[in-house]
C-alpha cells in the first residue's frame, strides 16, 4: 500500500491578477466542459496511481480560483474521487479561496463535504496594496471570510500574504502581520512578490509606471516576518511557510520531500516517485483531448541522477529540515559536506552552530548539524543564488 497526494487544478478566475503567471482562464463558460473532462481524467487516465494499492493522504484544490466552482460541482468531483481511491482517515483536504468570492453558505458546504483546510488568498490587509495587485477584494472581505470560515467549523485556516509590493512600506507590512496574527490563523505563507515576465505588472514596471520594492526593504520585511511569526509561536518550516505545531501543509511538504503526487486538470504536474509528468497547459486542448479519449499528458520525463541531485538540493534547502546528509550519501555515494567545502570557503565557510533558518552571527549562509545541511536566515535571502552556485559547483 502506498500513499500519495492529489492536486486538482481549477484553471478559472473571475479576473486575472496583474502579477500572476499561473495558467488560468476568465472564460467561465468553459467550466462545464472542464468538469466533464476532469471526470474523464479521474476515471480513465490516472494510470500512475492505480487503486486500491494507492491511498490518498491529501487533496488540494488549487488554481486559478477554485471557489469559482459551484458547491455542487465541488461535491461531485469529491464523490468521483471517493469512488476511485480510499483516503487515510486523517487526510488533509485543502481548498484555496479568495476573499469576496465565497458566502458563508458556501463555506458551510465545503466543510460539510469533507474539506478540512482552507487557504485564503488575503495577500494584504492594506487596500492600497490590493489595488496595486488589482485584487477584487478589500481588507474587510478578508477579515470577514476568515471569521466566517471559523464559524463554518474550519479548524485549519491558512492565509497567504505578499510582501515587497510596489509602494508597500515597512509600516504597512508590520500592520499586515499584526492583523494576520490577530485573526489567529493556523498557517501563514509569506511570499515576496516576484514580478514575472509576461505579466501586466512587469510591463508597468518596464514602462516605469511602478517602482519595484527596494531590495533592502524587501530584505528587512522578510527578516521582520520571520522574527515576528516565530515569536508568535509559528514554526518557520519552509522558506515561505509558517505554521502552528501540527498545522503544516501535508500536501506541499509532499512535493518538497519528493513523495508521489498526482495532478489533474490543465497544467497540473504529477510525480510517481520516478517520472515527472505534466498535463497540457491549455484548457481547450485539455478538454478536447479527453473528449476524444486521449490522455491529457503533455510530456513525461525521468530525471537523471544529476537532475535528481539538483531537485534534492533546491527542495531540501527550502525546508527547515534541510538536505538529509545520510540519505545523500546512500543515494549518491558522496559526502556532501566535504564536497561543498571549497565552495563554502567563498562564503565565509560552513556554519555548524546556527540552527536552521536563524540569523548567523558571522553572516554565513549554509549551516549543518551533522545530520542535515540547511540554510541560515542569511542564506534564505539568497536562496536562488545559493542553489545555483551549489548546482553549478557540484555537477
Amino acid at each position, binding site marked *: 500500500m502506498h500513499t500519495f497526494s492529489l*492536486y486538482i*487544478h481549477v484553471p478559472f478566475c473571475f479576473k486575472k491578477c496583474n502579477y500572476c503567471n*499561473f495558467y488560468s482562464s476568465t472564460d467561465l463558460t468553459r467550466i462545464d466542459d472542464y468538469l466533464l473532462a476532469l471526470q474523464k481524467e479521474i476515471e480513465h487516465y490516472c494510470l500512475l496511481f492505480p487503486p486500491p494499492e494507492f491511498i490518498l493522504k491529501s487533496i488540494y484544490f*488549487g488554481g486559478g480560483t477554485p471557489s469559482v466552482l459551484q458547491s455542487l460541482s465541488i461535491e461531485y468531483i469529491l464523490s468521483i474521487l471517493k469512488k476511485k481511491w480510499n483516503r487515510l482517515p486523517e487526510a488533509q483536504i485543502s481548498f484555496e479561496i479568495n476573499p469576496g468570492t465565497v458566502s458563508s453558505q458556501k463555506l458551510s458546504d465545503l466543510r460539510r463535504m469533507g474539506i478540512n483546510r482552507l487557504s485564503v488568498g488575503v495577500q494584504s490587509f492594506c487596500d492600497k496594496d490590493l489595488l496595486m495587485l488589482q485584487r477584487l477584494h478589500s481588507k474587510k472581505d478578508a477579515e470577514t471570510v476568515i471569521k466566517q470560515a471559523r464559524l463554518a467549523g474550519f479548524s485549519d485556516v491558512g492565509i497567504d500574504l505578499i510582501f515587497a509590493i510596489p509602494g508597500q512600506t515597512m509600516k504597512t507590512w508590520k500592520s499586515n502581520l499584526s492583523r494576520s496574527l490577530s485573526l489567529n490563523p493556523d498557517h501563514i*505563507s509569506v*511570499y*515576496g512578490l*516576484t514580478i514575472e515576465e509576461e505579466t501586466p505588472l512587469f510591463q508597468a514596471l518596464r514602462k516605469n509606471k511602478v517602482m519595484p520594492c527596494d*531590495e*533592502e526593504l*524587501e*530584505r528587512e520585511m*522578510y527578516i521582520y516576518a520571520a522574527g515576528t511569526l516565530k515569536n508568535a509561536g509559528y514554526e518557520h518550516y519552509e*522558506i*515561505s511557510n509558517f505554521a502552528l505545531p501540527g498545522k503544516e501543509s501535508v500536501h*506541499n511538504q509532499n*512535493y518538497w520531500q519528493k513523495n508521489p*503526487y498526482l*495532478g489533474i486538470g490543465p497544467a*497540473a*504536474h*504529477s*510525480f510517481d516517485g520516478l517520472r*515527472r509528468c*505534466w498535463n497540457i497547459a491549455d484548457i481547450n486542448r485539455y478538454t478536447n483531448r479527453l473528449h476524444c479519449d486521449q490522455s491529457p499528458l503533455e510530456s513525461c*520525463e525521468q*530525471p537523471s541522477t544529476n*537532475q535528481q541531485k*539538483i*531537485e534534492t538540493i*533546491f*527542495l531540501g534547502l*527550502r525546508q527547515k529540515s534541510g538536505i538529509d546528509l545520510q540519505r545523500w550519501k546512500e543515494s549518491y555515494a558522496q559526502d556532501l559536506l566535504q564536497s561543498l567545502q571549497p565552495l563554502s570557503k*567563498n*562564503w565565509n565557510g560552513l556554519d555548524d552552530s546556527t540552527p536552521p533558518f536563524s540569523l548567523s552571527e558571522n553572516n554565513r*549562509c549554509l549551516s549543518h548539524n551533522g545530520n542535515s545541511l540547511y540554510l541560515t536566515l542569511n542564506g*534564505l*535571502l*539568497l*536562496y*536562488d*543564488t*545559493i*542553489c*545555483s*552556485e551549489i*548546482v*553549478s559547483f557540484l*555537477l
Partner: protein
Amino acid sequence: MKQDKLRNFCIIAHIDHGKSTLADRLLEITGTMTKEEMKEQILDNMDLERERGITIKMHAITMEYQADDGQKYNLNLIDTPGHVDFTYEVSRSLAACEGAVLVVDAAQGVEAQTVSNLYLAIENDLEIIPVINKIDLPSARVEEIKQQIIELLGCKEEEILLTSAKTGEGVKSVLNAIVNKIPPPGGDSDHPTRALIFDSVFNTYRGAIAYVRIVEGSLVPGEMIKFMSTGKTFELQEVGVFRFGNIRTTKLSAGEVGYVIAGAKDVKDTRVGDTITTVETPATKPLPGYREVKPMVFSGMFPSDAENYEDLRSALEKLKLNDSSLFYEPETSMALGFGFRCGFLGLLHMEIIQERLEREYELDLVSTVPNVEFHIYDANNEMHKVDNPADLQEAGNIDRIEEPYIRANILTPSEFIGNIMPLAMERRGIYHNTEYLDTTRAVLHYDFPLAEVIFDFYDRLKSLSRGYASFDYEFVGFRPGDVVKLDILLNGEKVDALSVVVHREKAYEWGRRVCEKLRELIPRQMYQVAIQAAIGSKVIARETVKALRKNVTAKCYGGDITRKRKLLEKQKEGKKRMKQLGKVQVPQEAFLSILKVD
C-alpha cells in the same frame, strides 16, 4: 621558351576594384582555362574569398598568348595578397615581376591601397599599365578617374586602358600592353643560380612547395640546392610551371616562374623573399630585400573551455604549416588558464586567424586586448623585448621604453579631412603632409605609434568618413614612448589577462572605461566586488559591484518541480562561460567587451 617571349606581371588594386575578375577574364581569353574549369577554381577558392572578400594567399599561373605580331608569348601572372598586413609578401611578388597592371575602379577611383601598392611597384622598378575597370557601371566617372591616375602616375591620358572585366570589353588591350610595354626578363641562365621565393604553400604529401622566379641561372631536379638565409640544403626533387594545376618540367631557367619541391617539411624552410642557389656553383650574394617576417601585433588566445587547449594547439599548428608569419607560444594566465600568446603581422592577420580558428576549427576563444611589442632598455642600455603586458614589470629597472611606429597613408575625400585630423591627433599621429590627388581627394601622411591603430582605429576612420576613407601603412621602426602598464584588480587581485600597456596620458581614460564596463558586466555576487584600475600601486579608477542582498523566488509552483530544475540547469550552463578569478566570477563577455570599448 626564350626570355624575350616571357612576361612576368602582377595585378595590383584596391579591394573590390576587380582584380580577380580581370584575372579570370585574362585566363579565359588566353584559353588557359575554360569557363567550366574556372568555375571549379572559383568554387575551390570560395571559402577563403568569402572570408573577407580578399585574396589572402597568392597564386601564380602562366598564360600562353598569341600577340598581334603573330608570336606566342608566355605571360606569368603572379597574384598578390590584397592587404596592408602583407605588404612584405606583396613586395616580394612584385620583385618577381617586370610589370604591373594597376586596376582602378571606375566608380570608386584611387584608394589608399592603390597608392601604396603603386609605390611598392615603383620601388621595384616595374612598368605600370594603368587600367580603369568597371567602365560599364552607370556610376562610372571615367574622365575624373583618368585625371586622378594622371596626377598619381604622371602618365599620358592615352596610356590609360579602359576595361570592363565583367563584359570583357577592353581586356584584349590589356594583354597587348603586357606584351608590348612590359620588358622581357633579363638574367643570364649561365650565371650561378639565384631564385627568388615569392610564396610557399604546404602540401600534406609533398611538404613545403616554394613558388619561385629564377633571376639568374637555372634549377634542374637532382641537384643539391641551398636556401641562402638559413643555409639549409636539400636535394631538388621536382620543378614545374603553373598551368591549370602544376605541370612538372625538366628545368627552370632565368626569367621563368615556377614551383620547386625539395623535401622541405616546413614552410619555415621556404621563406618568402629568400634566395635559392645551387650547392655546386653557389651565388656569392643573395637577392636583395629579404627580411625575416616578424609579428607586429600580439594577443593572448585562450579556449573558453579549458578542455579545448589541445584542440587549439593542434589548430594553430595546422595554420602555421601554411603561414610562416604566424607566431605562437604557450601562455598561462591566472585569469584565463592555459592558452597561447600569438603574434600576427597586423590586425587583419589577427582577425583572419581568429576567425579561422573559430569557424574552421570550431573553437570558442577568449582573446586579450591586442598589443604591440615594446623594447625595454634597462640602466645598462640593454634591450629586452616584451610582447605581453604581464611581463613588463619583470623587465626590471627600466631606463626607457620604445614602441613601434608606422607610416600611414590615409586617402580620403577632402571634405573629411577635418574629421580625420582630430582622430589622428587623438591617436598621437605625427603629421607629415597632405597630397592632393585631385581637387576632391587627398592623401594624408602620418606617423603613428602602431599601438594606437591596432585598436578600433580603422572602424573610427571609416565612420568619420562615411566609409570613404581608406588606410594603409608600413612599419618604420621603434621610437621612444611614454607608456605605462595599467593593471585591473578585482577585490585587490590583479587580473593578468586585463593588463594593458598604454600611453601615460591615456591610462586614466582607459582605466575608467574598463572599470565601468566591468561593473556593467560582472553580475552581483554574494559579496561586494571592487574593480580598480592601477598604475603600479596607484589606483586611478574604481567601481563597485554591490553584494547581492536578496535573491529569492520561493513561490510554490504547485507540483512543478521541473521548472526550477530547468532554470538551475540553464544557470549551470551559463556558469561555464564564467571565469572564476579568486572569489569573483567574471563572465567571458567581460574580456571580449574590453575589445569593444567605445
